[in-house]
């Protein structure tokens, strides 16, 4: 049934049979594969609306909040657009720790902090962004405190306070599918509304700040399922450079009800956010994947709690200075309590309000498809979040700033980094917008975008996006593909992903606006999967959260470099090295 014969016109009987089978699968909760499309809405009747602004902020999390506020305060007209709602989508709602460098209480200097992060990150961090974090986080925390962010569990109302006070316009539940580039620079974006009979929305802007977060493969056990690298992939399509794709976030989840991320995190999601000071680690996560790979499922019959990686030889290396020793005083209670989603769940028996110990065994792949916070995303060309596309900025997890490096180093820096970078990029975008006019977008271009955007709704039949996503998950999530990497399997997975890219993405169907969103998300995840595989294949060494079974050692001679990815003139995904501590050379 999942075979497609383009020359075969189904008879009415097979037609009904296909539809019936699809309904049956859908009822069973399985995304149906190939099936007749029965759109509940009329794509041709979807109205189009247009907006204009100086600075368009895409995304409503921590980075988007500050980008909008600071762009406004710098004198720009600002429009925020978000797939979800301000403060209630992406990773922001679940991060509870906010790093601040308070000179009053820290014993070391900012220089010491940056050096320490660089040592833990084995050089993979960009010290310019690491320093920027430390310099600005306290001020951002003060503003958040004024807005009530540290007084309640949920972020929507505290975030709304400064936005409403400035009367910043918001469009919510709008999925942006296209960034528009004209005259060599950013011209705006386009997307569709998720509600009612739909709405195609065109947003012309002098500057755009991507605060779209990073993403994963809609994995189970981590609250990242709405993030599918939409910003990165849209930007890649218009020529932006991307980085950090080889790094891996190694969160695990429980073996019982593994998809229940709320339950797996104890009371984490219900906590009120708080601040924390310097606390630098080298939290791998992928070391547990390695232990599971080496010893089989290490959990069966074992004691509840974390995976014992101590007895397993080889595998990802944590620098001696940053090794967590089991039972070391201070390991319990402190950082995990405030660390938010920054790190994997703590060892069992964590006291003092840390996430409760995971009951039963642990399962890998909870955050599959996600790199390290702040490491993947657009390649910055300066310290203000500018990308390789003039007028296009990024901040937070959408910016490949390598603030923490290819490993999560400073507890609480994820949320703080988004705030700091959002504010800086917002200001920079406002400044840029002052110097340019709105770029003209030919109407033919807008028509083409609309057709592309709504295509899955208009297909008579096609692949269900949920089914394609599950297929992608089956290829990408297993431990031996992107966690414990080796060339042969990554090549095999790449072949699979390319097949999905070439043969399934063009045939995705959508019966309603929700499915249309899924269709675009699925396409974006497939591009991201290809990037991850190619970058992981290219990096022939092991370092931080990137572990190659066939290149287990760190190779400083060849690999003191990040990997950038961009679309070459031939349309092909093109990878290049960018030396650590150097800005990209665009030549």
């Amino acid at each position, binding site marked *: 049934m999942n075979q497609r014969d383009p020359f075969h016109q189904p008879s009415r009987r097979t037609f009904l049979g296909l539809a019936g089978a699809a309904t049956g699968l859908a009822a069973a*909760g*399985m*995304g149906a594969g190939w099936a007749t499309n029965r759109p509940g809405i009329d794509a041709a009747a979807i109205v189009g609306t247009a907006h204009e602004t100086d600075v368009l902020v895409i995304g409503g999390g921590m980075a988007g909040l500050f980008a909008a506020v600071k762009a406004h305060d710098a004198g720009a007209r600002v429009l925020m657009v978000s797939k*979800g*709602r301000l403060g*209630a*989508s*992406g990773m922001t*709602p*679940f991060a509870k720790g906010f790093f601040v460098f308070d000179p009053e209480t820290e014993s070391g200097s900012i220089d010491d902090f940056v050096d320490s992060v660089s040592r833990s990150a084995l050089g993979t961090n960009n010290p310019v962004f690491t320093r920027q974090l430390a310099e600005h986080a306290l001020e951002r925390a003060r503003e958040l405190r004024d807005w009530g962010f540290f007084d309640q*569990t*949920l972020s*929507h109302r505290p975030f709304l306070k400064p936005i409403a006070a400035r009367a910043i316009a918001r469009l*919510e*539940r709008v999925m942006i599918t296209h960034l528009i580039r004209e005259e060599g620079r950013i011209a705006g974006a386009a997307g569709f509304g*998720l509600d009612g009979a739909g709405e195609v929305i065109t947003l012309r802007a002098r500057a755009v700040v991507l605060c779209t977060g990073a993403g994963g493969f*809609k*994995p*189970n*056990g*981590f*609250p*990242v*399922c*709405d993030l599918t690298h939409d910003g990165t992939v849209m930007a890649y399509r218009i020529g932006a450079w991307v980085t950090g794709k080889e790094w891996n976030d190694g969160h695990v*989840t429980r073996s*019982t*009800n*593994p*998809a*229940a*991320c*709320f*339950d797996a995190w104890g009371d984490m*999601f*219900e906590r009120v956010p708080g601040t924390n000071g310097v606390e630098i680690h080298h939290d791998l996560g992928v070391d547990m*994947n390695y232990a*599971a*790979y080496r010893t089989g*499922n290490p959990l069966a019959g074992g004691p509840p709690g974390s995976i014992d990686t101590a007895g397993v030889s080889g595998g990802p290396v944590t620098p001696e200075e940053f090794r967590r020793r089991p039972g070391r005083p201070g390991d319990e209670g402190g950082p995990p309590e405030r660390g938010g989603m920054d790190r994997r769940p703590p060892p069992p028996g964590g006291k003092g309000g840390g996430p409760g110990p995971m009951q039963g065994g642990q*399962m*890998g*792949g*909870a955050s*599959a498809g996600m790199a390290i916070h702040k490491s993947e995303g657009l390649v910055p060309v300066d310290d203000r979040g500018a990308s390789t596309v003039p007028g296009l900025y990024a901040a937070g997890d959408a910016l490949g700033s390598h603030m923490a490096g290819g490993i999560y180093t400073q507890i609480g820096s994820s949320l703080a980094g988004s705030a700091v970078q959002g504010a800086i990029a917002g200001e920079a975008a406002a400044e840029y917008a002052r110097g340019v006019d709105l770029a003209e977008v030919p109407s033919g271009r807008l028509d083409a975008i609309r057709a592309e955007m709504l295509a899955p709704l208009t297909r008579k039949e096609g692949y269900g996006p*949920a089914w394609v996503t*599950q297929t992608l*998950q*089956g290829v990408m*999530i*297993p*431990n031996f593909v992107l*966690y414990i990497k080796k060339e042969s399997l990554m090549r095999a997975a790449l072949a699979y992903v390319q097949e999905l890219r070439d043969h399934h993405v063009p045939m995705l169907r959508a019966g309603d606006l*929700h499915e249309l*969103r*899924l269709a675009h998300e699925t396409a974006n995840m497939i591009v991201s999967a290809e990037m991850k595989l190619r970058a992981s294949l290219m990096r022939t060494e092991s370092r931080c959260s990137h572990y190659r079974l066939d290149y287990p050692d760190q190779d400083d001679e060849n690999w003191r470099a990040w990997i950038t990815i961009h679309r070459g003139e031939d349309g092909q995904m093109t990878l290049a090295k960018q030396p650590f501590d150097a800005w990209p050379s665009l030549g």
Partner: protein
Amino acid sequence: MTIKSIHGCIGCGECVKSCPCDVLRLDPGNGKAVIAYPADCQICHLCRMYCPVDAIEMAPEKSIPVILAWG
């Protein structure tokens, strides 16, 4: 199961707006929240926590097969 049930919904739409994954929609008939796309629920409980009348009950089970790094 994911979102298990909704009882006592007043139709304010807070859950629809706060669901990152667009699982919930308001029924055009009676204006109340319905679990429209349960397979996409990431079991994060935001809807439950945003609901002003505490109408949403959660369950930890996912309604579709779960793919993990190891089994």
